[in-house]
């Protein structure tokens, strides 16, 4: 029971860890950005899970309903999604610039070029 009762939270954590692993184990910068997005979605799932009220419904007032899920996490997350895509766009813009400067988007190759003697 206690294991089952938290399955949403556990899955959010597993997703977060998959995203985290994608970020730290892969050298391709685009893949890192996608990993970051996976991590981000896992946080959204965690927040929305916390807002769920088992007897509640969608937080839109209607006659005949008295129990609603918590609207606050919904507000936080829907703005966070839009802010998240804006940040993703900035990250991808950086990746495009890195590709133009270094000719590669692999982190280790970028680093190797930076460490070359004579590199500015």
């Amino acid at each position, binding site marked *: 029971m206690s294991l089952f009762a938290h399955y949403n939270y556990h899955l959010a954590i597993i997703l977060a860890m998959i995203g985290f692993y994608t970020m730290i184990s892969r050298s391709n910068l685009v893949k890192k950005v996608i990993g970051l997005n996976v991590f981000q979605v896992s946080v*959204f799932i965690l927040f929305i899970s916390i807002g769920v009220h088992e007897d509640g419904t969608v937080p839109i*007032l209607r006659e005949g309903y008295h129990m609603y899920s918590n609207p606050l996490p919904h507000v936080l997350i829907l703005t966070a999604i839009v802010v998240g895509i804006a940040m993703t766009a900035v990250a991808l813009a950086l990746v495009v610039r890195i*590709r133009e400067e270094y000719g590669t988007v692999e982190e280790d190759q970028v680093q190797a070029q930076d460490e070359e003697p004579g590199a500015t």
Partner: protein
Amino acid sequence: MDTLVDILLLAFIAICAIAILRLRDLFAVAMMFGMFSLIAAGLFTTMHAPDVAFTEAAVGAGIATILILVTLGQTARREKSQAGRNVLLPLLVVWITGATLIYGTADLPVFGDPQAPAHTHVAPYYIENTQEHIGIPNMVAAVLASYRAYDTLGEVVVVFAAVIGVITLLGLRRRPAGVESRPRDLEKHQVLKVIAKMIIPVILLFGLYVQFHGEYSPGGGFQAGVIFAAGIILYALVFGLEPARQVIPPRVLGALPALGVLIFGGTGVLNQLLGGNFLDYSVLAGNPQTAQQMGIIMIEVGVGVTVGSVMLLIYFIFAERALGRRKDDGEVGR
């Protein structure tokens, strides 16, 4: 039944995440990411959050996937082999972090528990008072645009700052002279064109509905902005960048993100001029409920304008860059 659907979606989403990690072909990864977001949107719907589901579907499955694809077109299609990289350390870090977090969940209230702290402090206030204070049914819109309008203003400014960042990095229009947007494979497909022509008006109409009906049903400026932008981006994908750029003249589009923030902040200042507090709408009209609703509609328009135009601008900047690269780089992304 709900639990079953929930568990099924959670299983699918985990499979998608693992596929994203394992796949080498980055185009496939981008498509998996779109699916991942769409399933997440389904999950949000089962968890009573249609507002969030709208946003996630339009942003994650729509705009984020397209931005990743456009970036891939300018970088590399395949990930380099990871052979020789040390995977032990990252694995160790991830396992330890994950185990600690899972251990931490043991103390959390059970999923859906009505007695959880999240449901017993500030949430009942919003649920009980929205009708009386504001008089609109959608509590999410009420909290977003009235109770917590200050936070929302901050978020809109962050979105605005992000587009400034992208413009700084990539430039508004940096296409070398003489590069024309030539027809791409997608533009040659008649089926896509016909279907797109049928779908796009519906998407745009739905965007407007979500914007102006957001007080009564799931929706609001954030969702409407991304849905509207997704419609125009679809047009750009199928019919080419040039025709899409003519929908909103670039000069106007460049000014819209600032205009939206101005509408939002201006509403706040207007309240101050009328003798109220910043973003306290009660002075806008005699009846406090009418005043609140007027304030909410005004700032939702501001949010919608900023979010929609920022998404469009970001897409146009990336797509322009891709056209520019095609000329000086020849075949990119080996």
